[in-house]
């Protein structure tokens, strides 16, 4: 580790040295190759993503209506943004509940998936099956299965008499807590009520947490597997305990993936349908036909998430250790 530190330090000083030579340095020419590597994505950005993004930004400052003649726009300045904060009584509460949920959920999901991936990386009987089961939420939480759920719910709503039948078919929220009353047990052991309540909340939401941490567990798992076993061997030869191995090798090697997971989790929890932000924005846009207002709302959401991500990555990236 110390060696790496030295290596990165020397590199930094090299980079900091002013390079006044004109023309292309070897390193510059080498870096030009970077453009070729990101070329497909660059094309996508320029021709598909950015136009759409700019469009929605333009919509946010306009009153947009779509009729047979096409898209009609009427410039209204910041009115949509004023409306969101001052006139609309529903937006702010939905938004705040989303932000609060995001912080709590992200923390729980990250800790849980980090722990679980370490467990799944150990050797035990039935590890393959366990991994498959933990992958299941990646598939179940979106796309076809979620659509089928919605279709069934809609059918039931239209034919109210069949609630009984659907009860067996939909995904119930079943957690540890239905199996054992863990929170009550902990309270008996004399732990403070606030702590046991928190544990209780986590356990009753176990299904949601497991559902949301499928991808994160996979990312951590593949990062764990990427650590060369020889590093552990060397540590063992030096007399490191398992605890030291974890904090001196495993954890630093996982920090790059931790950053990915944090960013992904913050984004995905914020858009979690539980908090209704995305649904609210969509409802404004499609059923309310207020496209301009919906764009303004989504831009408010973008800005807030970007600020949160900026803060989080700013704090984390100082602690992220790269081997390079």
């Amino acid at each position, binding site marked *: 580790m110390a*060696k790496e530190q030295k290596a990165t330090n020397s590199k930094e000083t090299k980079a900091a040295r002013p390079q006044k030579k004109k023309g292309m340095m070897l390193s510059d020419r*080498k870096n030009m*190759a*970077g*453009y070729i*590597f*990101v070329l*497909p*994505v660059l094309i*996508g950005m320029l021709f*598909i993503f*950015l*136009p759409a993004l700019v469009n929605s930004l333009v919509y946010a400052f306009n009153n947009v209506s779509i009729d047979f003649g096409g898209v009609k726009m009427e410039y209204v300045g910041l009115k949509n943004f004023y409306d969101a904060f001052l006139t609309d009584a529903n937006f702010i509460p939905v938004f705040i509940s989303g932000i609060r949920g995001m912080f709590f959920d992200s923390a729980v999901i990250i800790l849980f998936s980090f722990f*679980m991936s370490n467990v799944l990386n150990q050797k*035990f009987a039935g590890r393959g099956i*366990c991994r*498959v*089961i*933990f*992958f299941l939420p990646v*598939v*179940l939480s*979106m*796309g*076809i299965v979620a*659509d*089928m*759920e919605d279709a*069934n719910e809609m059918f039931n709503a239209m034919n109210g008499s*069949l609630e009984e*039948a659907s009860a*067996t*078919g939909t*995904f119930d929220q*079943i957690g540890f807590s239905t*199996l054992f009353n863990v929170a009550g047990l902990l309270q008996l052991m004399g732990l403070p009520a606030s702590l046991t309540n928190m544990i209780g909340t986590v356990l009753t939401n*176990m*299904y949601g947490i*497991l559902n949301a941490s499928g*991808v994160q567990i996979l*990312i951590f*798992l*593949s990062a764990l*597997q*990427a650590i*060369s*076993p020889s590093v552990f*061997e060397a540590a063992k030869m030096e007399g490191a305990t398992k605890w030291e191995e974890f904090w001196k090798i495993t954890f630093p*090697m996982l920090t*790059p*993936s931790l*950053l*990915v997971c944090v*960013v*992904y989790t913050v984004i995905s929890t914020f858009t979690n349908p539980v908090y209704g932000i995305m649904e609210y924005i*969509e409802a404004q846009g499609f059923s309310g036909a207020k496209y301009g207002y919906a764009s303004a709302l*989504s831009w408010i959401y973008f800005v807030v998430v*970007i600020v949160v991500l900026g803060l989080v990555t700013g704090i984390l990236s100082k602690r992220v250790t790269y*081997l*390079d």
Partner: protein
Amino acid sequence: MTKTKTKIKNEFNFKRWARKWFSLHGMMSIGWKIVRAIILIGCCYTIIYPFLLKTIDAFKSFEDYLDPAVKYIPKYFTLANIKNVLSQLSWQKSFPVTFLYSALIAGLQVLVCGLAGYGFGRFKFRGSKIIFALVIMELLVPPQTLIIPLFLRFRFFYGGANLIGTYWPIIIMALTGMGIRNGLYIFMFRQTFRNMPKELEEAALIDGCSAFKTFFRVMLPNSVSMMVTVFLISFAWQWTDTTFTQRFQRGTSLLANMISNVDGGEEEVMVLQYNNTAAVLCVLPIMLVYLIGQKFIIQGVERSGITG
């Protein structure tokens, strides 16, 4: 660990047995094994229980399905649902087509995102930070926001071609790194490549490899775990994707399209059970692919001599 276990089984050695059970370390490790088993069983139960119920539902006759008293063991076991749903999905065509298409898309995404991840992770070119910020932005924007402009783009593609209803839109999106959550894959690859020892590339450079050769010969083989992970996630999400498939590729025989045609037939109510059965049938092949694929998420290549 396993060696000592087999030894204990073969010849019972009291001393070793006692040391294992009564030393602090041994007790801790056994305690951890028990805790681990409880946690894993609990989590697996939580995940699999609803899915298991659905799977059981698929084998129930419709009377059983409506009967709240029949939960785990169907009274009238039947394969009729599965047969019906399979024929409604026209499975001889839709399953192979979806399989090949998902594999193609996942492969393309691994390639494109891998290239981009390497570009972002290892090269410092002008504007790289801005482009990378846009990649994260891409992850941030919910697909619903992009659907209308994307639809118009593919309806009147450059040159006026109408790509809606063909297999092309998602292929084009995969080629340009715009597919479902491709920002995540790019980010994953970037972090992986950044975490690789630079000595690998330097060695390749000295041996006369070009940047591309280095990427394909040195960097990719060293990141098999990440490639497989991205491939599996991408495959699963493409297989189950309805957001883009149902809007841009209507009329193709992908599962996501076929599944929206499932109906109850003569008795409309049966659509409930058919939907459940279809969902189970669609998920099973992905599980199979994962079961095979996860074996490739393996320990990294030895590179002790290089990292030092």
